Structure formats: structure tokens, C-alpha cells
């Protein structure tokens, strides 16, 4: 620990930054591939279904087309996010085909539909070679060619004369249509669909729920062209929406399909149709408007949704084919429902929730201090006591809420292990090494955010083991080991931490070689006395790790500084143990979650800092004369032991501190080491959420992060391991 801090500092700034950039790119590509693969898998399955419907001459299920559209859309969004323009463009053109298909602009028999399969095939090929810059030009050509073919297959039909003028629609509604919505309206008229206005009134405070329910019901049988809000009968509290709907159903059937109390449906006639406006009220009086409206055919009503085709007055044959598709549709709905008790949640939303919890904690702290102030006022003492009691209950519930949110964020390591196993399978194919993986503890859970940050370092360590630690089969035979090597990856929980061990049965790390190389690089002097552990820890020095030779001869070193930095950023640590000839174990210890911690707030001059309370052993109030000098350091007699003191003002180069008179010493402990940190003031304890600091400077020496305190703005959180380590190093150097 001590050695790594001291020697690491100077070169640490430059090297990892470069490495970070290209590894970020690689990481981004990997992320893209794994997500894109998922989308493509889904698309492939859906396209098979689409192909089946096509060859069987069944009318295309719009939901299926929607689903493929969404996949293409997700892929486009994903590609955009990762800056992969070619893939994005191709996905966009797939959307064109699917859009046309859905609007009936493109017939299912069209050769354009075949191009969907070609696109998926091309995507698959692109993903495989995404990392190969040599193929970039070829990809660009392939994409351009396919896009050209799609473009020629998806020609827009010439626009017809304006059909909108003849619609029996309120001009104010027509006026509020954007050009795009007008285009959709024309499109639907051209297809001969019925147009209807669905009016419904909602309470303003909760309109979205009701409206989305209504829209969803409409979308089952048609399309919402526009959604026009207007004041309800009680304008302060209500809002009415007029939905312009295009559907194959006549108004009465739409009304019965919707089955939503209070929604009125009226057919919008065209100039060619009768002048009269037919109005069907789906009233709340009947309670079950479906029965009422479906009266014309009792059997129809008994069966699932009234057939759309019948309303459109088509011939019997087409009715049959419709009802044939109707059943699988409902079956699909049911199956959707059964899997919907798990929800995929964007981790950022959970972060927001977590932030909210953090903010609530800040408010709770504020209430507590108000209660404390009130209790000194005799007249308010009783209320203060009640406030304190209520605040305690609030605190309990907050803790439960916090635990609940944290629990949602927990994911098992299984997925990470599966990724590792895939990588190793590929390595095994490429290299002549027979290595088997042995995973244990895949069910161990960690915060999703930590898991994501963990993938890279873990991958690194496993690759190191594979590439460098495991000897060739011949060497293994010579050493009397089984030819087949094994890498064990084991995860388990220890207290509030999760430990992940990567153990190999390879050649181990030769300390003498590590030392020799460190000396040749000027990272240690030949006179330095290092313990076995300290020598081994040299592999974490960035200067050392950039050299290829050590990794080849001794089995470790490539990017171990990066691994260490990544884990430190998560509040974790990494340790290495190795026995020459027997193998190496890399243990990574991580906090289970980035939870709320208790912190001590200290002050120096006008600055405030937070110190995680779990590293604070005690605080002392010192008179100036209690501080003694010993050579260039200050010490304190703490119950007979000499405690090294460090001044926070010097550590952080802060001016305006009190240098004599009273000082507070915050006794920090980490591992076996103790340091007394001198500060001007103590400002009490607070619950804090430590957050990482965004910005160009990635590592700030001595700062672990920052936290927001209600009344004091942003307060920096001190990295205790740095202060303690720095202090020990100085002592050793002395």
C-alpha cells in the first residue's frame, strides 16, 4: 500500500488517460455488440414469424410489424449513441420499410420485405467485425448498397389531391394538425379507413393515465392521428381530449371495443358520404357498453373483440382470415401479461431514485436540527418532542425505502461470469492453451452500477491469467503439472463487502524479477528494503505495468494500475498473492453498494470537508502545547503511544487556518495505521451520499468524492486511505 502511492504519483497522470480512451472505445463497442445482439436475436425471430404470415397469405399482424419497427428503432438509437453512423442509417432505412408496411404503402408481397432479412444479415456481419478497421470501408460500401436497394423499393407514391377539405371536422382541429399529422390523415383516408373522433373528459390531475388507457385501446384497432386537448365542463379541474382516430371499424363498433365509460365516439364523414353525423355514446349509465353496442349480433358479442373486417363490410373470406389472426393476438397478450411481473428499469432511473432518497435524508437531518432548536424553547418543548418522535418514524421509513431501492439495484454476478466465460472460450480458440474456467458464487449480488464498473477490471485480470500466468502445455508437463490449466473465479460475501477472487494454477510471479525491472526503471532504488508484500505490490505501479516483458516472464503487470484505479474509484481494493510455480490469486474487495454513509464534517479556515465516520476512531481537542515536534513531523502522546499528526491545511494547501491555540485532532484508522488529522473545527455528523466528481480531472489526490449537504452546498469527502498512506510513506522515508 505504502509503496504504490509514492511511486505511482508522477507517471500516473499521463499513461492511464491514453489507455482509458482507447479502452473506453473498446468497452463501448463491446457494450454495443452485446445489446445489439439481443435486439437482432429478437428481430430474427420476429422476421421468421412475419415470413410465416407472408407465405401463408395471412394479413400481417400490425403488432408484429410494430415490434420489428421498435427493434430497428432501438438499434438506430443505440448506434447513434455509440456514434456508429452506418449502422444507424441502415436501421433508419429498415424503419422506412416497416413504416410503409404498417401504413399499407408497401404490400407484404413487396420485395422490400425481403430486404429486411438482408439488413439483419448485414448487421450480424457488421457486429462480428466491428473492431476491425480494415473492413470499415467494405462495411460502408455494403451499407450504402443495401440502402440504395431499400430506397428504390420504398418509393413514396405520388401525393393525391387534398382529401382533407371534405372532412366533417371542426376547422380548429384541422388547424392544429402539424404537416406530419396531415400526412398521416391523408394516408389513412387513402387506405379507406374510417375516421372517428373520440372525446373523453378527464380530471386534470390524473389525465395521463386515463388518456393512455384510451389511446392504448384505440391502438389495438387503429391509429391515433392527433390528440387535441380542450377545456372540460369544469375547466379548472377537468380536461377533454378529442382523439382523431383512423380505424377499420365503424364508429359503433369502435365504441363498443373501447368499452371506456364516458368516452364518446363519433364518425367523421367525408364529403362523399352522408352529411349526417352518426353519434354513438358509450355511456357510463349502461356500465357495460360493450354488450349494448354489440347488440346486432349476440354471438359476435360473446366472442372476443368484434371483428373489424365485418364492420368494414368485406366479404366472408376475409372475415375468416381476420378472426384466424385475432386468436393468436389475444394469446400473445396473455403471455405478455404473465411475464410482465419483472420490469427492466434503466439504471439511471434508479440513480434518480437514489438521489431522491439522499435528498430526503438531507431534509430529515434539517428537521432533526429544527426539533433540537425547538426543544430549548420551554413553550415549544412538547411539540419539539413530538416532532422528534415523528422524525424518528420518518427516519425508519426512509431507511426501509433506501434498503428497498438498493435491493432493486442488486444483480447477481452471473451475467458477468457468462461474459468472462465467452471471452475465455474465444481466447482458447485463438491460443494453444487448454484452460478451463471454474466459476463459483454466480448468485452473489452486487449493486448494478458496481457490477458494470467491475466488468473491465475483472476481464483484465482473467485475460492476464490466461495470456501470461498459464504456461504452455509443454512447460506445464515439464513442471509436473496437468496439461490442462484452470482459472477459478469465486465470488462471496464478507460482511458489507463482496470479494471476487481470480485464482490460477500457473507459473506465479517471480518477485526477484519484478524487483529487478522496477529498479531498472528507477521506480525503486537498489538500497530500498522492501518486504515480500511490498515487492509484489510493485506490479501496481503504472511505470512498471507499461513494460511488456515483465508480464511475459512473470505473468502479471499489464494494466494492474488501471485495475487498481478502477476498484479504488468504487471504494474497493485489489490484492495479489502469488507462489512461484503454484499460481497467483488476485482478490478484489468491493462494497456491496454505494450506500448512504455517516460522515464527520470538519472545518479548516472557511473550507469544510467530510470524513467517512467508519475510519474515524476518535476526536480530540488539543491545546497547542500538547503537539510535539519530532524531526520534521508533529506527534501527540496518545495514552502512551506516539500518534503522527497531519495538518489538513498543509495537506490541501489551504490558507487562513489557525496554527496555534486549540486544534481538533481526528484520529483516523485504516488497517494497522493511525494518523491524527488536525483541523480547526468539528461541525458534527451527517448522513451523506458520496458521489463521484464529474469533470476533466479524474483523480484528485486526497479526495474520494463529494457530497451535498443541505445548508452548506457541496462538501468534499476526504480519501482517508490517501491521508493515512501518505503519512506512513513520509514516516518510512524519514
Amino acid at each position, binding site marked *: 500500500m505504502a509503496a504504490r502511492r509514492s511511486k505511482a504519483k508522477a507517471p500516473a*497522470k*499521463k499513461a492511464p*488517460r491514453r489507455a482509458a*480512451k482507447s479502452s*473506453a472505445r473498446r468497452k463501448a463497442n463491446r457494450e454495443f455488440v452485446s445489446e445489439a445482439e439481443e435486439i437482432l436475436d429478437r428481430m430474427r425471430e420476429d422476421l421468421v414469424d412475419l415470413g410465416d404470415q407472408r407465405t401463408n397469405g395471412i394479413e400481417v399482424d400490425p403488432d408484429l410489424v*410494430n415490434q420489428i*419497427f*421498435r427493434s430497428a*428503432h432501438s438499434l438506430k438509437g443505440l448506434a447513434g449513441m455509440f456514434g456508429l453512423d452506418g449502422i444507424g442509417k441502415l436501421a*433508419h432505412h429498415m*424503419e*422506412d420499410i416497416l*413504416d410503409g408496411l*404498417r401504413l399499407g404503402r408497401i404490400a407484404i408481397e413487396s420485395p422490400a420485405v425481403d430486404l429486411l432479412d438482408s439488413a439483419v444479415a448485414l448487421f450480424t456481419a457488421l457486429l462480428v467485425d466491428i473492431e476491425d478497421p480494415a473492413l470499415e470501408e467494405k462495411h460502408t460500401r455494403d451499407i450504402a448498397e443495401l440502402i440504395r436497394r431499400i430506397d428504390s423499393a420504398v418509393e413514396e407514391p405520388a401525393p393525391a389531391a387534398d382529401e382533407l377539405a371534405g372532412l366533417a371536422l371542426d376547422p380548429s382541429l384541422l388547424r392544429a394538425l402539424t404537416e*406530419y399529422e396531415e*400526412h398521416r390523415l391523408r394516408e389513412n383516408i387513402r387506405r379507406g379507413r374510417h375516421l372517428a373522433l373520440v372525446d373523453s373528459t378527464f380530471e386534470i390531475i390524473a389525465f395521463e393515465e386515463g388518456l393512455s388507457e384510451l*389511446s392504448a385501446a384505440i*391502438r389495438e384497432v387503429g*391509429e*391515433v392521428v392527433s390528440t387535441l386537448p380542450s377545456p372540460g365542463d369544469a375547466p379548472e379541474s377537468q380536461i377533454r381530449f378529442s382523439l382523431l382516430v383512423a380505424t377499420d371499424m365503424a364508429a359503433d363498433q369502435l365504441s363498443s371495443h373501447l368499452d371506456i365509460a364516458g368516452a364518446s365516439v363519433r364518425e367523421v364523414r367525408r364529403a362523399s358520404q352522408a352529411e349526417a353525423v352518426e353519434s354513438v355514446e358509450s355511456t357510463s349509465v349502461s356500465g357495460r357498453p360493450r354488450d349494448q353496442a354489440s347488440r346486432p349480433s349476440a354471438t359476435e358479442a360473446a366472442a372476443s373483440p368484434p371483428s373489424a373486417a365485418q364492420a368494414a363490410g368485406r366479404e366472408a373470406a376475409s372475415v375468416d382470415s381476420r378472426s384466424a389472426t385475432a386468436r393468436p393476438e389475444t394469446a400473445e397478450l396473455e403471455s405478455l401479461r404473465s411475464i410482465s411481473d419483472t420490469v427492466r428499469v434503466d439504471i439511471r432511473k434508479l*440513480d*434518480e431514485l437514489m*438521489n431522491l432518497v*439522499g*435528498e430526503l435524508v438531507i431534509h430529515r437531518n434539517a428537521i432533526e436540527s429544527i426539533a433540537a432548536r425547538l426543544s430549548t424553547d420551554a413553550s415549544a418543548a412538547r411539540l419539539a418532542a413530538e416532532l422528534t418522535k415523528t422524525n424518528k418514524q420518518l427516519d425508519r421509513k426512509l431507511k426501509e425505502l433506501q434498503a428497498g431501492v438498493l435491493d432493486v439495484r442488486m444483480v447477481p454476478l452471473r451475467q458477468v461470469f457468462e461474459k468472462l466465460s465467452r471471452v475465455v472460450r474465444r481466447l482458447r480458440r485463438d491460443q494453444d492453451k487448454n484452460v478451463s474456467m471454474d466459476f463459483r458464487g454466480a448468485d452473489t449480488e452486487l449493486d448494478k452500477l458496481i457490477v458494470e464498473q467491475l466488468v473491465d477490471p475483472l476481464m483484465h485480470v482473467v485475460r492476464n491469467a490466461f495470456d501470461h500466468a498459464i504456461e504452455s502445455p509443454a512447460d506445464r508437463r515439464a513442471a509436473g503439472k496437468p496439461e490442462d490449466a484452470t482459472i477459478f473465479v469465486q465470488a462471496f460475501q464478507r460482511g458489507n463487502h463482496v470479494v471476487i477472487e481470480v485464482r490460477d494454477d500457473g507459473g506465479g510471479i517471480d518477485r526477484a524479477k519484478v524487483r529487478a525491472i522496477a529498479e531498472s526503471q528507477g521506480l525503486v532504488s537498489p538500497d530500498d528494503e522492501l518486504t515480500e508484500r511490498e515487492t509484489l505490490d510493485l506490479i501496481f505501479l503504472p511505470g512498471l505495468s507499461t513494460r511488456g516483458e515483465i508480464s511475459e516472464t512473470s505473468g502479471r503487470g499489464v494494466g494492474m494500475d488501471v485495475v487498481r484505479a478502477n476498484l479504488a474509484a468504487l471504494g474497493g481494493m485489489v490484492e495479489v498473492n502469488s507462489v512461484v510455480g503454484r499460481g497467483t490469486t488476485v482478490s478484489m474487495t468491493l462494497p456491496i453498494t454505494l450506500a448512504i454513509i455517516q460522515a464527520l464534517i470538519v472545518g479548516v479556515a472557511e*473550507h469544510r470537508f467530510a470524513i467517512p465516520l467508519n475510519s474515524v476512531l476518535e476526536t480530540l481537542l488539543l491545546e497547542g502545547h500538547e503537539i510535539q515536534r519530532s524531526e520534521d513531523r508533529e506527534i501527540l502522546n496518545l495514552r502512551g503511544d506516539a500518534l503522527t499528526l497531519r495538518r489538513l491545511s498543509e*495537506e*490541501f*494547501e*489551504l490558507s487562513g487556518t489557525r496554527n496555534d491555540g486549540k486544534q481538533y485532532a481526528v484520529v483516523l484508522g485504516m488497517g494497522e495505521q493511525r494518523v491524527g488529522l488536525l483541523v480547526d473545527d468539528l461541525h458534527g455528523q451527517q448522513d451523506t451520499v458520496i*458521489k*463521484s*466528481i*464529474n*469533470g*476533466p*480531472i*479524474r483523480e*484528485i*489526490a*486526497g*479526495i474520494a*468524492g*463529494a457530497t*451535498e449537504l443541505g445548508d452548506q*452546498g*457541496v*462538501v*468534499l469527502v476526504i480519501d482517508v486511505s490517501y491521508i493515512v498512506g501518505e503519512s506512513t510513506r513520509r514516516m518510512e522515508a524519514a
Partner: protein
Amino acid sequence: MSEAGSASENGDWESLARAASLRGADGEDQVDLLRELLSFRLDESPYAIPVERVREIVRVRKITSVPKMPSWVLGVVALRGEIVQVVDLRMRLGIPSKSTSRQSRIIVLHGDDDRITGMLVDAVDQVLRVNEDAFQNAEVSTESGAVNELCVREGEFVSIVDVDRVLELRAD
């Protein structure tokens, strides 16, 4: 308020299709020719950065100084739960620093990875759509190297700031 979810995130068909069609209808062909820039001022001179690097624009708030940082990092601010470093663009470009005014703003930039950074400027102007033809190389290499292009806008040169260069960490 501004963070609240919108229907577009729910990905319903209509909004997806609408968004797709809008891009196709009036975006696609012009996208290659037009660049969107957010323009702002240092003293009275106009500068601009690509709009896609801008996450948001916020008023100046209390900046907590951070020890041992290069002088061009003013400190950190809290931004809806995130802690963000603020870079003084004036100092970064070698222009003497000055105190903030009512017009001063922090432009929050997307950096690489998921990181964001605040950039202090004297005033924010507008979003410009500038034709590719209007750009020219800055030719002169300035000390910071952060202005690599100029564009002409209403007879005035707008300096295009290379965001990555501004955020790049050099040994100070």
C-alpha cells in the same frame, strides 16, 4: 420538472414513427450541410460549440473550491444530485479571469464516457445553424489550441471551441 419523463421514452409507436418521419422528411438531407452550434460570449467576442456537446445551461451557483487543482478548474458545483467540475473557459483560453455577472452561465458539457463538465462563460447567445461552407480553419495556432475553426456569421467571426481540447488534461 424538466427531468420528468415524456411519452417519447415510453416508445409508443406514434411518437417513434413521428420522430422517424420528421427526421426523414426534413432532417436527413440537410443534416450533412448544416451544423448546429451554441454560441456564447467571452467579453464581447462570440464563441461557439457544437450543440450536441451541450447537456444544459445553468445559472452560476455556489462553487466549492477543490484543493490542488489546476487554476483553470474553479471547483465543483451540485447539479441535480451530480457533482460537476467547473472549468473557467477564460483562463483555459488564456483570457484574464473576471468575476461573474448576471449574464454569466455555466454550460454543462458532455465529455467522453458518461462524464459531464461545467464551463463558465460570460453570456449565452443562441443556437446557430451554420452551413458547412461558412467554416474555415483558424490557421493560427493559439497557445491553448482550443480554437481550431472560425465561422462567419453576420459579418462577424465566431470562434469554434474544440470542447475535447478544453477538457483535455495537460500536465500543469
